[in-house]
């Protein structure tokens, strides 16, 4: 089933066009990887999906992005509600400089998802468990989140993102600042999370895309060159550029 349908999306930074006519369907409860060389627009596309580009004054987005058949670029779309449904994990772990508990409970608090302290405790616990962090931190929930290691911080950010039970999780190179062990943990986690969430991951590492994703889209110079099942893209791409990139001839 198709969760997100992008139709002819153009993105401009001032007068410079960053994305050209992107049309891409994203399957529900699967992992879609966006790959491509630096500056190809894959992160820009990702940020269109939860309208994070709104923050940048000079950035304008054209075209339709349908999530559950609702165009999020429409004026009637409320970004607060949208971002509640679409979580995001960033390249560099960015926990709030607050306690672990406050980090995870922040989303549910502002969206009024818990009626009591008990409910909130439960949300925090399940979120941390789903992010495979609970066992490591259950005794120090009230210590600052910034005291964790890089990998733990990123899992904390994932716990924070899933605390509001989003339908979609956007991941912007979530492992680029992590060591191989932490990366492996996060990848395992992504595999687990796709049961309940639709995941879109931007990655620099083709190996990672091959390991975690079912679908892959290849971006180059602001254009979506090719997309399809990961198997096909990696083994038998239609486009010559894709093949060159996959085989390491450029990028």
């Amino acid at each position, binding site marked *: 089933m198709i969760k997100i349908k992008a139709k002819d999306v153009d993105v401009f930074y001032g007068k410079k066009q960053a994305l050209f006519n992107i049309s891409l369907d994203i399957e529900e409860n699967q992992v879609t990887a966006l790959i491509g060389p630096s500056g190809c627009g894959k992160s820009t596309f990702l940020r269109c999906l*939860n309208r*994070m580009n709104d*923050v940048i*004054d000079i950035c304008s987005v054209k075209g339709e992005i349908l999530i559950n058949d609702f165009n999020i670029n429409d004026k009637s779309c409320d*970004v*607060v*509600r*949208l*971002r*509640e449904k679409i*979580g*995001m994990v*960033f390249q*560099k772990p*960015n*926990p*709030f*400089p*607050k306690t672990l508990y406050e980090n995870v409970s*922040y*989303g549910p608090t*502002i*969206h009024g998802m818990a009626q009591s302290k008990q409910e909130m405790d439960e949300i925090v616990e399940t979120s941390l468990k789903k992010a495979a962090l609970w066992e490591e931190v259950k005794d120090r929930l009230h210590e*600052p989140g*910034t005291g964790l290691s890089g990998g733990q911080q990123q899992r904390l*950010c994932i716990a*924070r*993102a899933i605390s*509001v039970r989003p339908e979609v999780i956007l991941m912007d190179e979530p492992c680029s600042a992590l060591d191989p062990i932490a990366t492996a943990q996060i990848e395992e986690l992504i595999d687990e999370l796709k049961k309940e969430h639709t995941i879109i991951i931007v990655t620099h590492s083709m190996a990672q895309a091959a390991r975690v994703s079912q679908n892959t889209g290849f971006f180059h110079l602001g254009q979506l060159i090719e997309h399809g099942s990961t198997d096909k893209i990696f083994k038998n791409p239609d486009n010559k550029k894709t093949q060159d990139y996959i085989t390491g001839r450029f990028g």
Partner: protein
Amino acid sequence: MNKNKEQLLNKRYKAEQRFRLYGLSAIFMALLFLTIFIFKIFSTGYSAFQKTWLIVPVTFDAELMMLDQNPSKEDLQDADYYDIALKSMADLDPNANEDQENELKRMVSYFFEKEIKNELLNDPNLIGKTKEVYLTASDDLDQVFKGNYPRDLPEDQRRVSDYQLKIFDQLVANGKVESKFNISFFTNADSREAELAGIASSFMGSIFSILVCLMIAFPVAVLAAIYLEEFAPKNRFTDFIEVNINNLAAVPSIVFGLLGLGVLLAIFHLPRSTPLVGGITLSLMTLPTIIIAARASLKAVPPSIREAALAMGASRMQTTIHHTVPLSMPGTLSGTIIGLAQALGETAPLILIGMVAFVNTIPGSPMDPAASLPVQIYIWAESAERGFVEKVSACIMVLLGFLIIMNLFAQIIRHKFEKKWS
């Protein structure tokens, strides 16, 4: 070639050594000036914390005080103390002629009548008896006792006569002159008489001014900074505002004083010489300092924190209030303290709005006339009497102490916040 390189290297090392030397000598110079300054202030000012008292036997003669038998409390209040006060002073030298009696009277402060009255009010049983009472010595004798008075000047160039010195020396020899901690320096308002002048009025004036300044400048500045940094679109208009705020920070303080005079006093008719007007004027001056500091510390909050909050579905205001502002608080607070410390030491604008007036009452609210500590220093430094010299230094010491306490307070707040947020 190799030799050349060696020479070059040596040259570089030497240059580095010279550079270090320059730095060290600069620091040494700064420390030297500071030490001289502090030494001068302390050595001149410490004696102001001591006050000289003459111990004079006073006979509480009911007849002279115009008191009936068994006087009530009111009678004691209304009684005439001037005659017994005069008589006690005159009795110091039984052979004194009229002129000399006058000189004897001037050996104590004009407050001596009140001091004798208080003695009797404390103990009404003293009527008809004689008691040794502590009377505040005149400022000149105070200086004589502290050794700051040029006794060897010819008599006609001194305010203390030979006769007064003779009697004073006798009193000293008999142990009837005592030096005690000068409480009245902290509890009295200003006075024309150096021996009675205190800093209570100017101290309270400073505190009220700073509070008014803080209450106006801090919220306005923080809101302005938050709006400009987090909400305002970046366009020419906001650039223009930014440039003007920076210019405002460089405007000489006396201009703000003129503004206070022209607007607050002339148009709004706020009460003259009050900490309210002083505080508002100072807040105009402090405003740009706090705005600049608050904006800088808001800018220093990593954008990743804002993105994290926004991506969680926080609105822009929630992002600002929950995350950005708390993180920027330590910087904002230290900027505020710097601004307030500047305001505390400011003299010129306060003089213009009339806080330089002679105020001999202690203000109970920001609406009462008051001086402020730096203005008090200015007033005393202008006075001719020798007794005010030490007072100036003592007042500077109090002002410096005040500033140090404020900075300490700021450090503590800052430290606490920083621990919490990182």
